[in-house]
């Protein structure tokens, strides 16, 4: 194993452990006999907890001031991760087992660890109909390996490999434990996202063949790739990640997948899986092909603004609870992509915090929607109503999550959306100011549809469906409380997410100035 200079051995072990622990957990859980189903789910939760602790420990060296900006002879600012590990894997294909974590990836890594832990814990309490809980828990751990690997990978081909890992497990989660129309939804999900992945594969090798290396640290800032290569590569990357994120008009797989997926599947999907798209766009798209990004930025910006408006308008007419939340993701991801499209430090930081905030809040919203649907046996907004009367706590939490999602200042959703608009205004020019205005209008529409949601679900006379709701159980509180607290904490102290991002973001976008 090659030792990157200045990274303590313990940290390297920790980085590998973050991937090996959930993988080992998945194998262990799958091998446990069927009669120990509950025990297996507990084991899975323990493995998820260990992984979460490991992701937290990764932050230790960041408090020390080293490795931030390492000015090399050429004067460029490389993205220096604070922990990395590197070993050759498949030299013939140019694959290095190169992992690392920096300010851009770290919040997402922790979020992944947290959401997987919460979902595994939730599975101990409740297994959705369809298959064994043991298999579901194992699949959640496999998903975690793929997602964490994507966020940690510092090699382009390795990034692609991890990007692919999540496809079939997520398909299995939707198809195995989902709602009545799950097979079609799962198939749509897997075909759409594979379409994105193969474009990513083409883009990856366009870059790797031209540059002769897949090292994301070396490639950051363009690596002197020719203009044409960068254009081609960015076009491929942009479509690939736009499918995953998803960006309007490539989003059509998302509402079906979310509506049919079981609660834990929706939480993982919305909370972290979509972030692979936006993270990839920042790390790989903008990082590797900055000139291509600059060339395509106006198109991305226009699509992002269209996504915000389209998502909001569709939400205003939605009549199904989970579907509405799914479409709201399209709008929120529009804000994130708008931030990225500005290619400014402010914009990308807005995208990063928007990512995390959306993961926390939408994760919470899907947990709540799942709880309501499980109790009422319907997600139809027409049949729900007066939740405030029969289940005031659940209604209160739903209100909190909805208000956080619509971007009330002081809660997590605010920063990403507000600063995406600010960044667009700062970018200047008629186009970007127009986009900022359109996005702001979209923000207002977001408020409108969440208010409509709350009016329909919590207010008014209690309908038959919501009467006799059982109280919120302790496992549910345990699963939801961290998300509620995080939505507050990130809202009050955005530095929690952004503290370590400014330098790496400057390095990623810096090649433009």
């Amino acid at each position: 194993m090659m030792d990157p200079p200045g990274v303590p051995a313990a940290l390297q072990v920790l980085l590998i452990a973050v991937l090996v622990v959930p993988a080992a957990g998945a194998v262990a859980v799958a091998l446990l006999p069927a009669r120990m189903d509950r025990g297996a789910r507990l084991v899975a939760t323990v493995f998820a907890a260990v992984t979460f602790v490991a992701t937290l420990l990764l932050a230790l060296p960041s408090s020390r001031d080293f490795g931030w900006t390492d000015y090399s002879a050429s004067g460029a600012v490389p993205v220096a991760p604070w922990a990395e590990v590197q070993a050759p894997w498949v030299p013939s294909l140019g694959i290095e087992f190169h992992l690392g974590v920096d300010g851009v990836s770290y919040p997402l890594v922790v979020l992944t660890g947290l959401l997987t832990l919460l979902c595994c814990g939730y599975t101990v309490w409740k297994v959705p109909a369809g298959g064994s809980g043991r298999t579901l828990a194992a699949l959640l751990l496999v998903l975690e390996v793929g997602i964490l690997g994507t966020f940690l990978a510092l090699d382009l081909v390795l990034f692609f490999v991890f990007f692919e890992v999540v496809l079939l497990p997520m398909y299995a989660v939707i198809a195995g434990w989902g709602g009545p129309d799950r097979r079609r939804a799962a198939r749509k999900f897997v075909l759409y996202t594979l379409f994105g992945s193969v474009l990513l594969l083409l883009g990856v090798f366009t870059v790797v063949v031209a540059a002769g290396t897949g090292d994301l640290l070396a490639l950051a800032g363009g690596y002197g790739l020719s203009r044409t290569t960068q254009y081609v590569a960015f076009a491929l990357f942009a479509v690939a990640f736009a499918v995953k994120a998803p960006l309007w008009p490539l989003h059509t797989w998302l509402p079906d997948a979310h509506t049919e997926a079981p609660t834990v599947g929706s939480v993982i999907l919305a909370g972290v899986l979509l972030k692979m798209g936006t993270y990839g766009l920042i790390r790989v798209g903008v990082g590797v092909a900055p000139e291509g990004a600059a060339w395509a930025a106006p198109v991305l910006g226009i699509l992002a603004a269209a996504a915000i408006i389209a998502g909001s308008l569709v939400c205003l007419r939605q009549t199904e609870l989970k579907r509405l939340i799914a479409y709201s993701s399209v709008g929120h991801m529009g804000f994130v992509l708008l931030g990225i499209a500005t290619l400014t430090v402010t914009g990308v930081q807005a995208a990063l915090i928007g990512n995390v905030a959306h993961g926390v809040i939408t994760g919470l919203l899907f947990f709540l929607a799942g709880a309501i649907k499980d109790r009422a046996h319907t997600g139809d907004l027409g049949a729900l109503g007066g939740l405030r009367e029969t289940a005031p706590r659940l209604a209160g939490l739903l209100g909190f999550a909805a208000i956080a999602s619509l971007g009330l200042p002081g809660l997590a959703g605010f920063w990403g959306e507000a600063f995406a608009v600010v960044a667009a205004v700062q970018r200047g020019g008629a186009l970007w100011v127009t986009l900022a205005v359109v996005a702001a209008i979209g923000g207002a529409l977001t408020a409108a549809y969440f208010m409509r949601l709350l009016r329909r679900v919590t207010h008014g006379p209690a309908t038959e469906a919501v009467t006799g709701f059982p109280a919120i159980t302790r496992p549910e509180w345990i699963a939801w409380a961290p998300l509620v607290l995080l939505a507050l904490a990130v809202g009050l102290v955005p530095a929690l997410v952004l503290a370590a991002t400014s330098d790496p973001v400057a390095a990623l976008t810096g090649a433009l100035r």
Partner: protein
Amino acid sequence: MTQAVNHVALLPLYAAAGTALLVLIADLAFARFQVLAGIAGSIATAVCALAVPGRPSTFCSGDLCSWITTPRAVLTAVIFAALTIGVLALSTPALRLGLAPRGEFCFLLTCSMVGGVVVAYAGDLITLIVGLETLTLPLYVLVGLRRIRVTRAGASAAVTFFLVSVVSTAIALLGAALLYAATGALHLSALTAGTGQLKSLAAVGAAMIVVGFAFKVAAVPLHAWAPATYDGAPVPVAAYLSTASKLGGVLALAAVVQRLDTGPLVAVLAVLTMTVGNLVALRQTRMVRLLAWSSVAQAGYIIAPLAAGAVGIEAALAYAVFFVVLEFLAFAVVTALRTPGTDGGDLEEYRGIGRRSKWPAAAFVLAVAGLAGLPPGLAGLFAKVAIVQSLIAAGWGWLAGVVAINAVIALAYYVRVAALLYTAPAPVGVHLTAPVGSGPVAVADPDLLRAATQPRVAVARPVAAAIAVAAVVAVALGFAPQAIFDFLNG
């Protein structure tokens, strides 16, 4: 003129031919132990291939040799031997029941292995074609070899296969003759495109050789024999056809394209093969037909990098190696899930089988995920990555794009068949809902009915072992694909 023959170089061939003789003797002398003799001899062949020191060549005139030991030849010879062992293991249940004459079956299969070894080491076109024929000739018989005729499918499949194959060999031989007439070269390392007036004649010869070999890998539009033959053959023989026979064809194609410029022809064949294969596979309702069409499509991926000429050979062979392992695994599971002697059956018969036969179903998911190029079938993922990388590096980006789009189409049916294994089977039987005494009501317990109509087939031990070994190899290659690349580079 006398030639010094290096017998050490020929050791793998002697071992392979000895295996066939051993089987024959075991059959004549004891009328038993045929499978055992075949397996022991195949192991000996693999060991001999690995043990030959250095890189000896023989049958040389000057620098040009007809029998060349390379790491690539060693690897493929070992794979042929391993596939023979695997197919013998898969056939054991059927042979035990006496569904096919045991001695003849094992003899023919090991003869086919001899052909595979010759193809692996061949250094000139004639040796190559003779090897290829030795590889396929026994298969005509194997496809139709049954004591009890269940359907006519086997016989008609054998005849189709025989006719198509003979025609393709004739075309390849004619091509070799034209090439020789035009350039005077038959040794693979000396093949040239020819010069002057004879250039076009040489080009026609090269194209005919490619077309002749394309029959063997079932490339579209020369594929029509494959689905019918696979479906009509016993499942283990279909496994051999789609792995060993295809590998032989790929080796032959690779040998030809490395010195001759056949890029456009191969590219057209590749695009047609993968696209048609995948699109037709989407509509299949029978298991072996689906696998057959998917293997047609896979042949398209394999030959795609050959369009780039010599630089694509490593990727093509790497893909072929990964593909052979995964394809064998898929067929092995189909064998395990069916009663011996039956064909692959309809897809519907596999519904919900994963809930009863957990391990075989898991192995099947691994295999089809790999064939689709997705984790957990990491070997298949690396195979696809190798192809795309080599195509982009060689400047054939558009062909890489076609491969990528085809991967998406292919996933649609792979995921359908894998999901089918875990879908709850349609309930059979009638639940008693009418009140008793209100008339005659037919009652049947769904569980009992299911047990009666879909009996759980006990997996024979050799078949289970074959599945286990293939699955372990597939997983190991997924984590250490570099081993194969090292061998192919070596």
